[in-house]
């Protein structure tokens, strides 16, 4: 019985491990080469970042934002165009984020206060912003070459004299520091809860969790050490994920998203304004899409009118694979991250194997469907019993 609960709770984590091991074997270990592991998060930066915002939208009631791929393109196009014209990276970043904030306010207002159905509103946005991006780009491809901009998003933390390509002990040192901090935090947190008489997991299980987390961090750090060190982009991703994880799990503000998705009428009668909740979901989503535009633009090194095509679907798929309810009201950032990485591993594994694009779509679709069917069927069963 306990084992069953465990499997249910960690289905996607187990699936991730399974897929990871499978592709490691299929690729003859190439998947876990330092460069590939380092690239795994960087390649999927936009998915990880945008899935955080997408989760908020989905929490409000299974609503999605279809415009984020286009917003991402528009943001990147604006930055690229400005820097091509000689603007500073700071100006470019500011203007791009401003544009995405305006889009967020616009869509948040339409959806929250004018009650335009999110699907239609963001579908319109998808065309609208894609078009505007192409107007800015004048249907050309613009290279992103500003060194300051690239440094901000795509450089690696390397300490001169200590680190060199293929050997960056700084990554390992930072990894160990993080692992130690995490260990202390988790154990102290457990002690604090126990002291307040709050029910806590057994010490052994806490210890096992700590060991697993530490092992993952060290393993990841060792891979980064074996390549170019800690990528700045990982810090960006981590910051966003931690902020949104904190918002959704620890704050009153975050709780409102779950409440509105769980029962909007009851939430309203509890003195919470659902309109604001919708507004913030779509506002933050657009802002994250704008940031993702900068990340992707910097990583690819150029911006064209097709950039970000169908990226919204990757973010949406990650949320649902990660256990967010299609009806809203439930889902966690941690789950969504597992979903995003699962998709990322599948993509990367298949690319290494040299499977063509078309099969990647088939597999992605199958994984998404399987995850949702599994979710619906198991929840249905527990609901009945």
């Amino acid at each position, binding site marked *: 019985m306990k084992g069953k609960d465990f499997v249910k709770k960690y289905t996607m984590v187990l699936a991730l491990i399974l897929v990871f091991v499978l592709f490691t074997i299929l690729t003859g270990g190439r998947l876990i080469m330092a460069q590939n592991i380092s690239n795994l998060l960087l390649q999927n930066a936009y998915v990880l970042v945008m899935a955080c915002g997408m989760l908020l939208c989905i929490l409000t009631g299974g609503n999605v934002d279809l415009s984020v791929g286009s917003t991402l393109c528009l943001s990147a196009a604006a930055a690229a165009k400005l820097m091509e014209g000689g603007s500073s990276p700071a100006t470019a970043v500011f203007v791009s984020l401003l544009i995405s904030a305006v889009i967020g306010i616009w869509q948040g207002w339409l959806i929250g206060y004018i009650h335009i159905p999110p699907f239609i509103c963001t579908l319109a946005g998808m065309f609208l912003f894609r078009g505007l991006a192409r107007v800015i780009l004048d249907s050309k491809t613009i290279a992103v070459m500003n060194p300051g901009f690239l440094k901000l998003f795509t450089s690696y933390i390397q300490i001169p004299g200590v680190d060199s390509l293929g050997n960056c002990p700084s990554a390992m040192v930072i990894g160990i520091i993080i692992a130690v901090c995490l260990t202390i935090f988790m154990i102290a947190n457990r002690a604090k809860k126990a002291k307040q008489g709050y029910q806590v997991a057994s010490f052994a299980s806490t210890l096992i969790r700590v060991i697993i987390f530490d092992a993952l961090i060290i393993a990841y750090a060792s891979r980064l050490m074996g390549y170019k060190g800690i990528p700045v982009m990982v810090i960006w991703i981590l910051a966003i994920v931690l902020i949104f994880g904190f918002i959704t799990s620890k704050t009153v503000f975050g709780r409102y998203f779950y409440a509105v998705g769980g029962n909007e009428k009851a939430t309203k*009668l509890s003195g919470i*304004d659902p309109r604001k909740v919708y507004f913030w979901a779509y506002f933050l989503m657009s802002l994250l899409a704008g940031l993702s535009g900068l990340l992707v633009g910097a990583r690819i090194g150029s911006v064209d009118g097709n950039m970000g095509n169908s990226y919204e679907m990757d973010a949406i798929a990650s949320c649902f694979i990660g256990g967010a309810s299609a009806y809203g009201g439930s889902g966690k950032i941690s789950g969504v991250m597992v979903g995003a990485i699962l998709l990322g591993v599948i993509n990367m594994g298949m690319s290494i194997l040299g499977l063509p694009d078309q099969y990647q779509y088939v597999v992605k679709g199958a994984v998404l469907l399987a995850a949702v069917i599994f979710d619906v069927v198991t929840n249905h069963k527990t609901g009945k019993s």
Partner: protein
Amino acid sequence: MSDTILEMKNIVKEYPGVKALNNVTFKVERGEIHALVGENGAGKSTLMNVLSGTIPYGEYTGDVIFNGNVCQFHNIKDSEKVGIAVVHQELALIPELTIAENMFMGNERRTKFGTIDWNRTYGEAQAAMKRVGLKESSQVLIKDIGTGKQQLVEIAKALAKDCKLLVLDEPTSSLNEEDSKMLLDMLLDFKKEGITSIIITHKLNEVAYCADQITVLRDGQTIETMQNEDHTIDENRIIKGMVGRELTDRYPDREHKIGKEVMLSCKDWTVYHPVYTEKCVVDHASFEVHKGEVVGFSGLQGAGRTELAMSLFGKSYGSHITGQEFIGGKEVHLKNEADAIEHGLAYATEDRKTNGLILDETIARNTTLARMDKISHKDIVNVPEENKQAEIYVKAMHTKTPSIQQHAGNLSGGNQQKVLLAKWMFAEPDVLILDEPTRGIDVGAKYEIYQIINEMVSQGKAVVMISSELPELLGMCDRIYAMNEGRIVGEFNGKDATQEKIMSAILSSDNKTVKAG
């Protein structure tokens, strides 16, 4: 020589914790108009659901005998096949389709190729409409005709199915005087054509006007069947049958410490429907609630009690709200629900599942939702504190649950109600409005909820209790207001009030509809 078309024998239907029908026997003669009366929750609709197959055979016990045959209806189609047609109180029409399309919904007229035969559809619809006196084209959309005519379409739809027994569930509740009269006269015409009708209604003048026999249901039991062939029955005679319940339910005692201080009051409070903005749902209502007082609101469904309460609770219902609202003697203009909560109001909804609780969330999270500020610091939730508070309320309310982490949806109705009450007590209101706080819960849980109400008022709070159960109001309230059709039509002292007095205040205010005789 009596000729019985329908006999329902010893019908028992149980829902978890409550017997909706307890050995009901009901007999209808061929060619008569039979009125079925009773308070809200007396079991009228449940009985008709058994008859129509909405409650399928096997989910109740007892026999339904129609035209001499014992019937086993598994769904509505089965009962329609033998000629029973039910017109529900809430109209089941699709606004965006035409009258004819609605009339043959699920029963479409087809050509031999299987496509819809539009000529027959519109033609037959037109013929059926003629029988109920509708002159519109059958191609008019439902949304373009008034509710009165929509009701007629429903009846025409039933006639088109070649029905022998027509059941009308509160057909005149949304009709004006003229339309009501027309509808009743139509039933009298059908009677001449040999169609038997059962009419469920709260309007006793209508009963006296058209019914040949009257059966009274109360608490899921048949009380009596009265003859009314000469249409001269006294309305008070019917009321006596409806409410003649003894006050056997027990209510906990409390010390009555009613203060002078007025906690909540309103003057000429008028509210219009949020969608149909010309419809007045609360009409110049004025009332007050004192410190330490339990004030009851009685009335039939749709009397405007919930609408009054919700509109006072930060305008959470209605449009074009006018009138004055006072809290603690000071006039307030509440902007929204949050404002109302801040001013010390709480409204616990009658519909805990759709408006009250988040069923997929834990008890703990439901308890704190209306006052997250109490368990958070700088917007960060203090989860241990939240759990501690939830534990306190679970213990205080005797909520039966394995843990506060249980989802609200997994609890029984009574325990869900306790979580809803806990949520609003956690909000620490000065005035707590409880809308049907004991609906659908068992006797034991009811008693515990009464105790909680007593405790609230003993702490100097005020409680407004909206209930459709008169004995409950009489047992609990210091004062009782009676409402009907949006107006407050009576005020009673809890000690002097009787069920008869309240019921006749409500029903006699109805006389602006059909005059009997």
